[in-house]
Structure formats: C-alpha cells, structure tokens
C-alpha cells in the first residue's frame, strides 16, 4: 500500500460540501437557515466586522514583523478570521476557550491584548498571558493536546454545577490525533459541556485533507455519539449562530457538539513554510472569492449599516493598532536570566536553586573582565 489510495466515493463532499450552514453568501447576501436563526443589532453586526478587520490587521502586521526579523516565526490565520471571530463572539465571559497556536482572532474577540500573543513568537516567553484573566488558555503547540484539557475543564464545570461551557479549538490535521479522539470519547461518555470547534482549513502544513480523512470531519461525531455540524467557516454570522447553539446545548446538559468550520488556509502554515511546493494557486484564487471580510463588508454596505465614515474610522483604528503592535513588539524586553529558572515549580526545587546560583556566579565571574560583560 502507501502512495495514493483509491479515490473514495465521498471525496467531492470533502472539498465541495453541499451540506453547509450559511447565513451570508460570498456576495454578502443574507440568507436564512431553518435550524439557525440569528438576530443581531446594527451595532453587533458592525462589531463583528470590526473584529474581523482588526484580526486581519494584527495577522498582517505580525507576518511583516517576522519578515523584519522581529518575530522568530508567525502562524498566520489569513482566511480563518470569520471562523475565529464568530465562534469567539459566541462565548460568554465565564466560558473557557482552549486554543491551538493559531487562534489570534479568538484571542482578540476574548479581549486578550494581541501584543501579548507576540511574546511567544518573538521568543521572550513560552506563553505569557494569564489564562484565567480572559478565560483563554495558553497556546498549545503539540497538536490536539488541548482538547483533553478542555474536556477535563468541562468535567470540572459539571462538578461545580455551573452553566459555563468550554470550546476546544483544533484543526483538520489534529483530527487524526489520538488525544482528539480520546477527548471525543470522554466528552460523550461523561456528557461534558463542550464544543469541539474544528477549523478545517484543508491543510496540515503540506498534507491535504484527504490524508486525514475519507469522510467529512463533522460526520465523525455521529460515531462518537454526539451531533456534528458543518458551517461555512468564512461566514462570521453562520459561525456565530452555530457555535452559540452548540454552547447552549452544552449549557443545558445535552453534551458535546462537533462543529466543522469549513475554511481555507490562505497563507503558509507558518512563516517558515513554502506552500508553492505542494498546492495550486488556482485553489487560492477560488477561495479569494469567498473572503470572510469582503462578504461582511458587502453585507454592511448593502444593508446601509456602515457608511464611508465608519469604514474610514475602522481603517484608522486598525492602523493605530498595527503601529502599537510594531512599537510594542520592538520594545519588548528580553527576559532576564532569572526567568530561565523561574516558575519551573510552584514550591521550588533545590536542584533549580543550585543551578541558578551556580550559573549566576559563573556569569558574575565575567564582570569587569576584558570584553566579557554579560
């Protein structure tokens, strides 16, 4: 075996889904869905668009900062803004989000300062934010691990008799991981209040969706004993509505839901990747027509919810944010040597204490010596 497997019958459905919850067409036309209603105020529509614009601006700026040598690496979310903002905005303040390393849009919609996210990619910390401040977990780099943490957290909610809920983010690549499948089983068995939010961006670095699955990912949920739904991940309204419904379902004790947000990774896996080696630009061109920001903007214009003044002000705000990020990133201090040894243990360790003291006296031995100051 190996090489190319025979084409399964459902391959077309993998990439060109017919079943897809949509409330906003790529042209910005508002449509209805029998299962998912969404009524928002004008202000809420504008806020969603604002989040999308700010998220993209942060992403573009971070990519530029990496190119300028200010960040070691950046994992771009280009194209996935609506999936992240829609699902992030569906959460209540007490709900908890467990991200991968690409959920910058969720972070922004949770109120996490995007500058904080850059520390990890600049190399000044391995995480850097207090997960409990905005109920937004630390980025998890080993694929899928966080889905089990989310499941455990949801089991804790059950024991607290609270109506909080949890959302676990992961991608199409992670859907192959054992941890994700264990998380499905545990959540189902314990009926945990959790939403599994899979951003199917169709690429796991260079590996296409067909290397992870032979059926649409949302259909896997059925085998685990809970509902799965596929939503247009480039439609912020549909993503919001579907996630909100799944969270409500979790809150009322009906257990987990798997949401497959069907989207496309418009950029590289990270700034270290070169997608021209493994995918066609024609795919990219087709997906550009489904851009999540353009369709929301078209909708706002069509509905007369945003005039030129609104869009100009938003552009200005995004530009200001970019400047703040740029300056904040460049002036981010390097961690001190003490940070190397800090927080390995809550209750300390004589081993760490000894190594810290030895290293500090080693460093001190250079003080005053010719050309060797640290």
């Amino acid at each position, binding site marked *: 075996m190996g090489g190319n497997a025979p084409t399964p019958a459902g391959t077309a459905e993998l990439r060109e889904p017919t079943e897809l919850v949509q409330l906003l067409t790529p042209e910005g036309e508002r449509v209805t869905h029998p299962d998912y209603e969404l009524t928002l105020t004008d202000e809420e529509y504008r806020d969603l668009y604002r989040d999308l614009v700010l998220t993209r601006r942060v992403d573009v700026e971070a990519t530029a900062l990496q190119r300028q040598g200010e960040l070691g690496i950046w994992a771009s979310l280009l194209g996935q803004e609506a999936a992240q903002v829609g699902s992030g905005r569906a959460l209540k303040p007490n709900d908890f989000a467990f991200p991968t390393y690409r959920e910058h849009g969720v972070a922004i919609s949770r109120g996490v300062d995007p500058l904080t996210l850059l520390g990890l990619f600049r190399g000044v910390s391995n*995480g850097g934010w207090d997960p409990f401040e905005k109920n937004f977990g630390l980025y998890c780099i*080993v694929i899928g691990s966080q889905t*089990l943490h989310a499941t455990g957290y949801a089991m804790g*909610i059950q024991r607290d008799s609270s109506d909080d809920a949890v959302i676990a983010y992961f991608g199409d690549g992670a859907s192959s991981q054992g941890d994700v499948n264990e998380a499905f089983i*545990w959540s189902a068995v314990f009926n945990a209040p959790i939403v599994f939010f899979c951003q199917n961006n169709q690429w796991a670095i260079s590996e296409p969706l067909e290397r992870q699955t032979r059926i649409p990912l949302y259909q896997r949920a059925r085998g685990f004993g809970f509902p799965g739904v596929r939503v247009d991940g480039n439609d912020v309204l549909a993503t919001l509505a579907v996630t909100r419904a799944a969270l409500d379902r979790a809150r009322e004790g009906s257990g987990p839901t798997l949401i497959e947000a069907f989207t496309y990774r418009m950029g590289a896996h990270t700034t270290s990747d070169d997608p021209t080696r493994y995918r066609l630009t024609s795919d990219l061109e087709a997906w550009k027509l489904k851009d999540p920001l353009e369709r929301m903007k078209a909708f706002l214009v069509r509905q007369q919810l945003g005039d030129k003044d609104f869009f100009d002000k938003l552009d200005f705000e995004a530009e200001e944010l970019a400047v703040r990020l740029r300056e904040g990133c460049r002036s981010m201090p390097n961690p001190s040597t003490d940070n190397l040894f800090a*927080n390995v*243990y*809550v209750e300390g360790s*004589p081993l760490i204490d000894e190594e810290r003291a030895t290293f500090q006296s080693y460093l001190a031995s250079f003080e005053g010596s010719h050309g060797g100051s640290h």
Partner: protein
Amino acid sequence: MAQITLGKALNEGLRKSMETDPKVLIMGEDVGKLGGVFRITDGLQKDFGEDRVIDTPLAESGIVGTAIGLALRGYRPVCEIQFDGFVYPAFDQIVTQLAKYPYRSGGHVRLPITIRIPFGGGIGAVEHHSESPEAYFAHTAGLKVVACSNPVDAYFMIQQAIACDDPIVFFEPKRRYWEKADLDTAIHPDPLWQARLLREGRDVTLIAYGPMVKVALDAAAASDKDGGPSLEVIDLRTLSPLDMDTVLASVNRTGRAIVVSEAPSNCSIASELAARITEKAFYSLEAPVLRVSGFDTPYPPSRLEEEYLPDLDRVLDAVDRSLAY
C-alpha cells in the same frame, strides 16, 4: 497501634486527603466499584461518590489530559495508572503538558496533580507489568518524583504529594503492597523531600528506594549477622529532586556508596547519584560509586526475573567489590 499493609495505608491516606480537601478527585481504570486492581482505592467510590472517584475510559493520555483540565478548573486530581508499563500512552501529556504548562504560563497556572504508578517486578507478571520507568520522569523538568517503601511512608507521603502544588509522579512498590507495619497516624511525618537514614553503618552506604529498600536492609542485617562489613542504609524517598544533603553526609562518613535499584542502570537514578556523589564528595571516596540494578534489557519473562532483580547476594557482592578498592 494497628498493623497495616502498604496497600491499605495508601488507601487510608487517600481517604484522609479526600476528607480534608473536597477538591481532591481520584481517576483511573477500575478505581471505582472494583477498588483498583490492587484495591488501593477500595471503598472510596462508595463513600465519596462517582463524581469524586471516577472510573475512566481505558485511555491513559485521557486520564492525564483531563486531569490537567480539572486542575485548571481548581480540582486536585489523583490519577491511577494501573501498571508501570501502561503509562507510556500518557507520556506526551505528562511530559509536554503537565510538566511544562506552569512554566509556560509564567507562574499563572499551578497543576497540583498526583500520578500514582505501581512499579517494579517480583510478582510473576506478564510483560509491561513489572517495569521501573522512574528515570523518564526524573529527567523531565517540571515534575517531581517520589517512591515510598513502607506502610508508614505510604500513608503520609501520598497525602503530602496530593497537598503539594507541583505535579508529582508517585511510585508505589507493588510487590510490597502486602507488607505490614505499625502505623501511628498521630506522628509528625518527615518532609516529603527528605531521604531517610534507616540504619547506621561504618563501611559502605547503600542507597535504595521503593522495593529495593527492603533488599538493602536485608543485606545490611545479613552482613552484620555474619560479622561482615558494617552497612549504612538510606531510603531515598524523593527521586527528583534528590536529597543530596542526606546522601553526602553519609558518604562523607563511610567513603563508599552503592546504589541499589531495579531499573536498568543506563541513564538511571543510580547513574545520577553516582555522578553527583562523585562531583560533591570526590575526596571522601575510597572507591567508585557502584550500581546494583536491573539489566539494560527489556524486563524479562517472569521465570527470569529472579536473575534480573537485584537481591541480597548481588548487593553483598558489590559491597565486596567496593571494599576491594
């Protein structure tokens, strides 16, 4: 004062922790109605309910991964890994998440999780039921690793481990589960991070932990009875961090050290002790630090485990070799 087995002492210690702190949960395979395959959690589900003593799906990564989530929610989970050789599916969650999440958070997160693992051989079991994987965990920054050797320590150490705010891998010497001792629950226990001098001697220091403590004590008693060398015995108790103060004080007196452990010797706790003793007590040493250990083979079929496991004779042979320098 009642005689109690090591297994029952662990059970009583767990019960005490659950009574003291409502956030303490037990999770593992068969820990509920069955009370665990070694009955360490016997009766706890009946008394504390299914929400606090959780029979989990058979997925070790899930046990540790969900424990991390429960800890993030404010709980204090105690995970039972059924046998030493079953811990590897959970290895990623232990090493990449449990050990590193607090450091990653810059001090915002604590994960007070205890992972109990019955370890070591000598019970005639099939493959994967007799291993000594402690070095993997001692090698990992962010974890603390301890091993109890007797019922009194079992009772107190499990409570101290659960109360600790750092993640701890807690090794239980499964072949000693049925050994008895007097337990006075009113005594003030030693700190968790201290080794213990069990027997004073003049000529050689034997350092052991877990199931090998009894072997070291037996060797010291036999040597004494035969008018042989006078052997000092230390129960290490904490494997990471090591209590080098207690070890070095002894080696500085005797000038000789032998580490006794079931684990393969290559890159082991015994190796680490040999290196540290050599670095810190070089001028006190009359002989190189020797290791009496399992072999660098997979754990053998049980009909060969008597050959594999260090015993009294192999310890005394090492004593002779040490004294010959």
